[in-house]
């Protein structure tokens, strides 16, 4: 009899739990610190909305796209997902249109203009920006000091590519950093060089690939030479070696990555590190991107999803949330926000972003770039393996890009 009562109690509690609305969130993480921070904010949301229970599924960034693709294909999309630039373009057809929940003009007006092309599609609002990302260059201060290399500290004394190479050579030969430069294995990170050389992927009309240019050739040749001359360890682009690990272990003089590493690098204890402005060629540039939250139109709780998205991107929540994560908020009113120990580093990212041409963001807001990402990387790898010349790679990338644009 006692068992029957116990079962009834469990069933009753279960049904009470179900009566509460459950908001399902898929959240990707890149740093171990992110989960605890989001948990704190979820508790705040639940306290402010006692009828809602939030369930967060944390996934590593590498598994995010696959997870969302399978959930969407199975017609069980999450209510909310944290995504990157490429995903928001990919999931546009199934995105929850926030314009039916908010006043579009005032909602969009909260965010930096650079993020609007990613979320605004012909009157539909397919997501909201959480933070702005920028590619950036970290360096090992101890190795630089040991090698007698002085890193540029502001936009006034930015290195040229040639100066950058000289510094790599000195650091590698005169310090305990055996490797000059770690470089993330992504098209995004390579593209920094393309834009610095004055090149771009897609022309102003958005209908034609123009990467096969003298600027493109210069960027790809310079990049391939960094491998050939042993400045970047080949394993990072040829055999899955993790560039971040190499930098964090203190063996790499510099690391081409981005601002999202700050909170993770705050844990580094074995050496001093800093951020320097990106080197310049024909011009200065970074590659702006972002992290977004989006809902899905076939999810179970679209209304609650829209409410949560508005909440987490609101001034009251997003500013402290960005500060906790040490990321650049995508809100206009975050300008001048202080981050404490990383103010100098963040000022450098902001400086890099401020000189980046508008067409860089436009390139990456084009859905074709999301499809081209892996292809471009594959063609660059063939150059590094000596299977084709930089010129052949650019021709192939351009042909494939034009084919997709025509489709």
């Amino acid at each position, binding site marked *: 009899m006692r068992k029957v009562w116990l079962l009834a109690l469990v069933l009753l509690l279960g049904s009470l739990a179900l009566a509460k609305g459950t908001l399902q969130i898929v959240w990707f993480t890149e740093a171990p610190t992110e989960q605890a921070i989001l948990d704190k904010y979820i508790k705040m949301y639940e306290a402010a909305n006692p009828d809602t229970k939030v369930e967060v599924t944390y996934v590593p960034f590498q598994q995010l796209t696959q997870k969302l693709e399978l959930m969407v294909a199975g017609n069980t999309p999450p209510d909310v997902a944290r995504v990157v630039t490429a995903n928001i373009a990919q*999931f546009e057809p199934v995105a929850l249109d926030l314009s039916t929940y908010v006043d579009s003009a005032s909602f969009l007006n909260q965010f930096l203009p650079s993020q609007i092309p990613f979320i605004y599609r012909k009157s539909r609002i397919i997501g909201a920006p959480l933070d702005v990302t920028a590619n950036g260059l970290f360096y090992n201060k101890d190795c630089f000091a040991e090698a007698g290399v002085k890193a540029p500290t502001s936009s006034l004394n930015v290195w040229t590519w040639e100066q950058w190479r000289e510094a790599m050579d000195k650091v590698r030969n005169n310090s305990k950093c055996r490797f000059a430069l770690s470089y993330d294995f992504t098209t995004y990170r390579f593209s920094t060089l393309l834009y610095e050389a004055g090149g771009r992927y897609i022309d102003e009309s958005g209908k034609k690939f123009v990467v096969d240019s003298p600027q493109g050739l210069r960027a790809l040749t310079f990049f391939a030479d960094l491998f050939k001359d042993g400045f970047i360890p*080949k394993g990072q682009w*040829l*055999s899955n*070696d993790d560039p971040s690990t190499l930098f964090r272990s203190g*063996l790499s003089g510099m690391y081409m990555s981005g601002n999202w590493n700050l909170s993770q690098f705050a844990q580094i204890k074995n050496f001093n590190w800093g951020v320097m402005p990106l080197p310049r060629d024909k011009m200065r540039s970074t590659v702006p991107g972002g992290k977004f939250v989006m809902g899905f139109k076939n999810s179970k709780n679209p209304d609650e999803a829209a409410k949560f998205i508005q909440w987490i991107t609101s001034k009251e929540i997003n500013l402290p949330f960005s500060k906790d994560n040490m990321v650049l908020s995508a809100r206009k009113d975050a300008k001048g926000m202080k981050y404490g120990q990383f103010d100098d580093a963040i000022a450098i990212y902001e400086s890099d972003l401020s000189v980046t041409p508008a067409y860089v963001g436009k390139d990456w807001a084009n859905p074709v770039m999301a499809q081209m990402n892996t292809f471009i990387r594959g063609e660059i*790898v063939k150059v*590094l393996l000596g299977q084709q010349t930089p010129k052949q790679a650019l021709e192939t990338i351009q042909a494939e890009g034009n084919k997709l644009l025509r489709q």
Partner: protein
Amino acid sequence: MGHRLGKLLTPYFFVAPNTLIFGIFVLLPMVYGLIYSFYRGNFISGLQQFVGLENYRKLLHDQAFLSSLLHTLVYVFLVVLLVVALSLALALALRATSLGTSLARIGFYLPVILSPVVVGVAWRWMFSSDLGVINALLSSLGQSPVPWLTDINWARAVVILASVWSMAGFYMVIFIGGLNTIPAELYQAAEVDGANPRQQFWQITLPLLAPTTLLVTILATINAFKAFEIILVLTNGGPGDATRLLVQNIYLTAFEGANPTYASAQSVVLFAILMLLTLVQMRVSRER
């Protein structure tokens, strides 16, 4: 009448659970995979258009697919050859029962119980071109480092060796079982007739071990065709696509290329190859 019907149905009740599991988790996805392969579509919009054999026609000109197929065939041939040779050699060396051989058997079997991801990480740790233990050792001995995982040929060799290492222990146990079924009298008679160990191996051991060898070959072939995790962790199919096998190509086509229907066509081809190989091997075993 009822008793008769019950008797007739009983065996079906016994096989029902297995049939159900097989049907839901194996047969149904296979049928779905086959249907998908005749469509164009993606994860987001679902099946969009019936295209008949278009996906299969595309495969004939798809460089990524064809090279991954070629890599797979070479990989399977070499892995199976080495696995059969090594596991047989280990079985012959360790067939006698003593404390030493038991410990050695455990040692060689250990990789089998390790997760393929762990095997991949361990081999990566040893063979990484920049940070690997082996290159560090070579450097300390004054030798120049070897580009184990960044040179196409070296990377292929390391991937094959890692796979053989992780599989050989399992097949060694099967071979030991096979060796133990060979009657000792045959060897005694051969010794009396003056046969040396080499003659005994070729004339007695190998012929009588044929069914076991066939079983090992079938199992190793199927497992080698399905190789995925070790390679994913060890080289991620690189450098370039030098160690990208068919299964990884299917995975990349489906998820990174967001083209699940085209990936389904590739899966059907893989299934057909495995089916064909199994049928051939079964035929050979029947004829024997």
